[in-house]
């Protein structure tokens, strides 16, 4: 049994056993990740009637997503894993969206797009075969006008990423031998800082 957390869009928390989502709580609110994260974790544990010690890993949605909210979920997932002495499994948040599309019966090429703020979007492309989705390109960042062509397939603009689907997607990927080695958040953008230029005079 595992706990999954994703805050790359809104906040989503799930308890998953194998391919079965035992409990899931979510909000599309993109401003209150820090406020809701604790109650949502406690909530799914209560919904499923399980104690933290019966979990054996924690899946963390590593983005891409707006940084401030994204970090709340990753910090929570890592701290929870530390708290129960279990490993943390990083996962690409877009994979959950592709998994949902695949589960709904969609096949063929798929473009997943999520908001990156500042007039940019995060995107990934997938090929949805019968065995499941396989990410072809991404995740990456671009202006909405620069998205890869997708006339031959579907496009999903996701406003929510399901933690339950994220855990199931990760499990499916692992079962198919598709595994990526990474552990850090997928920021895809450098911190917005301006190097100090020459100091301006205060007197004329």
């Amino acid at each position, binding site marked *: 049994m595992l706990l999954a957390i994703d805050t790359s869009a809104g906040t989503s928390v799930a308890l998953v056993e194998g391919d079965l989502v035992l409990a899931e709580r979510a909000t599309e609110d993109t401003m209150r990740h820090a406020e809701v994260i604790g109650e949502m974790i406690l909530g799914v544990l209560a919904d499923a009637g399980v104690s933290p010690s019966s979990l054996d890993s924690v899946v963390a949605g590593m983005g891409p997503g707006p940084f401030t909210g994204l970090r709340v979920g990753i910090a929570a997932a*890592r*701290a*929870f894993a530390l708290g129960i002495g279990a490993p943390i499994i990083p996962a690409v948040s877009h994979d959950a969206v592709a998994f949902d599309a695949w589960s709904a019966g969609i096949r063929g090429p798929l473009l997943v797009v999520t908001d990156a703020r500042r007039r940019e979007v995060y995107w990934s492309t997938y090929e949805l075969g019968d065995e499941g989705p396989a990410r072809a390109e991404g995740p990456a960042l671009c202006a909405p006008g620069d998205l890869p062509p997708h006339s031959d397939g579907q496009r999903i603009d996701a406003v929510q990423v399901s933690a339950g689907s994220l855990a199931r997607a990760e499990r499916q990927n692992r079962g198919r031998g598709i595994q990526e080695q990474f552990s850090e958040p997928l920021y895809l953008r450098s911190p917005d800082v301006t190097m100090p230029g020459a100091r301006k005079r205060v*007197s004329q």
Partner: protein
Amino acid sequence: MTDGPVVLGIETSCDETGVGIVRGSTLLANVIASSMDEHARYGGVVPEVAARAHLEAMNPTLEAALAEAGLGLDEIDAIAVTSGPGLSGALMVGVGAAKALAVATGKPLYAVNHLVGHVGADVLDDDALEYPTIALLVSGGHTSLLLVRDLVGDVELLGETIDDAAGEAFDKVARVLGLPYPGGPQIDRVAKDGDPKAIHFPRGLMQAKDLEKHRYDFSFSGLKTAVARWVERTSDAGEEVPVADVAASFREAVVDVLLTKAFRACADFGIPRLLLGGGVVANARVRQVAAERAEAAGVTLRIPPLSLCTDNGAMIAALGAQLIAAGHAPSGLGFGADSTLPVTEIQVDEGGRAD
């Protein structure tokens, strides 16, 4: 004191990821991971850089603190975390981690005020602080003068900076003088050979007209500009800038304003106790002048060790332990990061809904 609750404190309000562990008023661990070096090339703390560093450092710092205390998580009685004030993206990393750790371990969680935490650091000293006390907290992020009647029940903000924090003024003046970031230690270093009376720089909010409305407030923006203007005028005239004298004179102006207002509060309220906290306490001249004036005014001066003055998790844990000892209920799980949390809110969301 060797008994009392074992509390783990998490602090992420600025550029230090701090995790501390206390048992009652005994310090067991104080581990700090600083991202200061990453900010140096930008000349100041960059919030996004700080927040990224907090996320990276959080679990390693938690583990290091537990190792330093020689404790397992099962031996912790409660968790305390800074809810504010501070940089909101930075605070959120600590809040997210603390909530998840509390749920995972089933421990009660206390969301506390960073500034009151600075005062709380003093309970870890051998002679416990007496109340009421005046507290002057000065760092790169805040400059606040507090009247603390009761650490866990009654803290009043007497005054604060109306523009730059004192630490920021040190950074900016260091830049004017071509010295690297952070400015505090640099100014301190070059000021050693300077004459603090060489140049009289203006003291902010110290004139008679400010005595009523801004009696305990601070302003360092005018001082910073005055120093820059003086340096420009000197070099425009083709003269060499006497860096040591400028640094010493600037530092003297800052120290003078900070301590004049702090001791004024002691006198006004008839409280012969002054606690200093925050990173600027590392400044040698602040400590020296404070000691001289305290002696002259018959005020007991308290300065916690430097590792407990700069931002750290032990002070947050110490405040949490005091809240528990005073019978406060844990915070709910619904609080957030509050970048402007007022000092009167010592604990946030006490007894909040936790289902």
